[in-house]
């Protein structure tokens, strides 16, 4: 799935990143991967093998909606945009992530 030099992403975390990336407006699959890559200062590289299953799952859960459109270079591409349900999901996942990272930080800050 992911390459050896970029960290493994939990499934829920990937959903979080995708939803966050779609906040500004609809994007197609490649743009979403690019956005995450750039926003993380090239630390995270999402493979198509993990991106698309996540997108399809989110679509089935009705967190994002898909429609075919035309890309920047005039090619047919499938665009995804976040739905109301997706916005709620985004807030929930963000909350979960905050608690998780806080918990990990606290453990590492103290001696066993």
């Amino acid at each position, binding site marked *: 799935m992911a390459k050896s030099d970029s960290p493994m992403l939990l499934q829920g975390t990937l959903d979080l990143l995708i939803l966050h990336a779609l906040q500004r407006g609809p994007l197609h699959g490649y743009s979403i991967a*690019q956005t995450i890559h750039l926003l993380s200062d090239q630390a995270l590289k999402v493979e198509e093998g993990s991106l698309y*299953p996540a997108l399809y799952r989110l679509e089935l859960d009705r967190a994002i909606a898909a429609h075919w459109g035309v890309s920047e270079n005039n090619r047919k591409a*499938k665009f995804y945009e976040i739905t109301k349900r997706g916005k709620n999901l985004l807030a929930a996942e963000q909350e979960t992530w905050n608690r998780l990272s806080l918990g990990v930080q606290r453990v590492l800050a103290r001696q066993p």
Partner: protein
Amino acid sequence: MPSLLLKLFRRRTMERDVEAELAFHRDMAAAHGNPIPIGNTTVLQEQARDLWRFAFVENLWRDIVYGARSLCRSPALVVTALLSLGLGIGINTGIFSMATEFLLSEPSVTDARTVVSIRLAGNSHASKEVVEFVRASGFFADVVGENEEALVNWNDGAETRQVSTVLLTKNYFAALGIPMALGRGILPQDPDEVAVLGDHFWRSRLHGDPSVVGRAIHLNGRSYTVVGILPKDFRSLIGFGYSPDLFVPRYLDDTILAIYARLKPGMTLGQARAGLVAVAKRLDKEMPNTLPESNRYADNIQVSAVGGFDRIKSETEMQTVGLFFAMLLVVVGLVLIIACVNVASLLLARGSARRQELAIRVSLGAGRGRLVQQLLVETALLSLAGVACGLLLREAMASAVEELQLPLPIPIRLHLTLDWRVTLYAILLAAFATLVCGLLPAWRSVRQSIAPSLRREGRMRLQRALVVAQLALSLVVLTAGFLFLRNLWRSNAISPGFDVRHTIYADVNLPPQAYKDVARKRAYVTAALRELAALPGIESAAAARVVPFNGGTRFGGSMKLLDTGKTLPTFYYWNAVSPDYFRVMDIPIHRGHTFQAGADSGAHPVIVNRTFAQRYLADRDPLGRLFRYGEDRVPYRVVGIVDPTKNLSIGEEPQPQLYEDLSRIDNDRTRLEFVVRSSTPPATELRAVRATLRRAEPDAGLEVATLYSSIGLAFLPSQVGAALLGGVGVLGLLLATIGLYGVMVYSVSCRTREIGVRLALGANRRHVAFMVLAGAARLILIGSAAGLLCAFFLVKPLAMFLVPGLRPSDPASFVAVALLMAITGFAAAWGPARRASAVDPMTSLRHE
């Protein structure tokens, strides 16, 4: 999940979308200089597909196709299964159809749920004034009356026949909204001489000629215009398959009518009843019931529905019939189980043969659930095919039942249509059959393929257990059938209390308008009797209002004994007869004498039977006693005591009977019976009797037959019971025997090697055959023992359907049935035993 269902149909589109998306992604990545990712497209597509859950439907489809193909490769299994399941399911749905049609069918009226049947004063019928009063009260949307027991004389040009007719009020068709096949119903503004024909009458007597509508037919000597014809599947308001031939407006003032009403919209049964009580109270004040011994109208009011369960609840005789059908359904249900177990055995045998195939599937990664699903799908295919065969059988049964002519005084025709209830029942049976047949073999095969047991199949414990269960069930079913056969035998031997071998019976329906006067009727009777007695070959002749088994009139009332002053409630079967009646019917006069002319004007002479005397007159010598009924002015005097006869059915207990003198009563009916005793065989005198009666009154409707042939009604219940249950019993035995045969054959073929070894080591061939027979005997013994035990308890409730004197737990039945089972079982085991003894040790040792 509607979106999921949509996705099922757009699967190809979705796969193309995924490919297009990935291609776009790769192109963009290449354009931006990123290296082509290593990701595997196929895996991605598989993941996507899994996500969309196409897997379940695809697997199911694949199972169906594969199952069908593998079934086609075993035609013997398919044929046997179809036969067993087809017969079992067919009989079940057939009997279910009959039961629902007979008991629960809705009449062919518009909106049957708002039509109710009304009884006032606890009487089934009321006078036309009462019907009109209830209608005029405006409480119901409309009120109609009908008399369904009428007979009308129809002259077809050559002969005058009696036709079963319904007399009705003219608003009948309009108020009930009855659908017509041709023409129209009777309207209130029609003249009195109009008629509507039933479909069967129109087809069989008038050749189904559509131009009959608008033409005239001759009824009761008058010309009636046919205005319409009812559809083929018409169901009457009275229900229970009753299918009259003619519908005409009421033509006599004193015809009593059964009352039906249509409720106003939104009215419930409770409201209807309450409102009716108020109407009845008004009726009591304005038109009090003047008949003696009758209740006030407002006492005992009943309002009941005309279809479905509610109707049966109010008719107690129908409850017995309902119980009979319920019992029948249970019995054929047992037969279905036997058939299913047969198929299960076959599938079990097949399952062990497919062990290898299933083991390979397991090794390729199939889960247990998938395997069970595959095997169950095969069984479901068999069940569905079995249901299809069963429904075909049901259609055959339905056509047979439509054609059936039962010896009943009223025409009953059942239309067994395939409605939603029967279909639902058939589907339930299919599901049941699938589970019973398939679950056990599927579970067993899967268990064996996953963890194969090294032990050989020789023991076959499960299959033997199944056969024992089949034999037990079959024994229960057979016992029931045998009991009903014995019942038929017994009922033929019961004496009805009068002579049926030398008697001729004639049913006469005098034209009503000409015979309104009682004196005219009496004159006719006297003349007819004189003519009949004068015939050569005729010993004596008599007239009566009722002849046993062809009708029965029961009365109940409060009797006041004039000598002791006591009052008792009584009920009895009533008849009015001419003096020679007892001589003709050979009913012994125990004490006293028959009616004599001119005797005793102070009291009406009556003759009672011994049961009546014992029950009501036992405190003193019954002969010569005077008593009074209700408010009658003239008392009755007992002049004779006779032996009891049966009244309506051959199995009934002795009932009190009371006879009046026909020439003294105020006879208001135009229907009469004549009985004639002949010294020569009765069939030879039929023509003479018919000619004599025709001469006496040419316009009368006439039916003449030997009394023996006309009492078919009495034996009908026992005949029907014997036919149905005897047939089902034989079917059950056949299926169980097939099961036993199958198991024995399979057992022998599995043990071929062992038998070969035994023979090679010097065993006697006969010994081998004996070994097989002993195995079969053990199965039959255990099965019969279990079956006898169950049968002993299970047939006890059948006592209500049997004639008195035949106890269900009579040991003779069980012995006979066990013997029958043993003989059949041995016959079944004979073939395999012979095959076992014919095994060639050389080839069998090379078998594996």
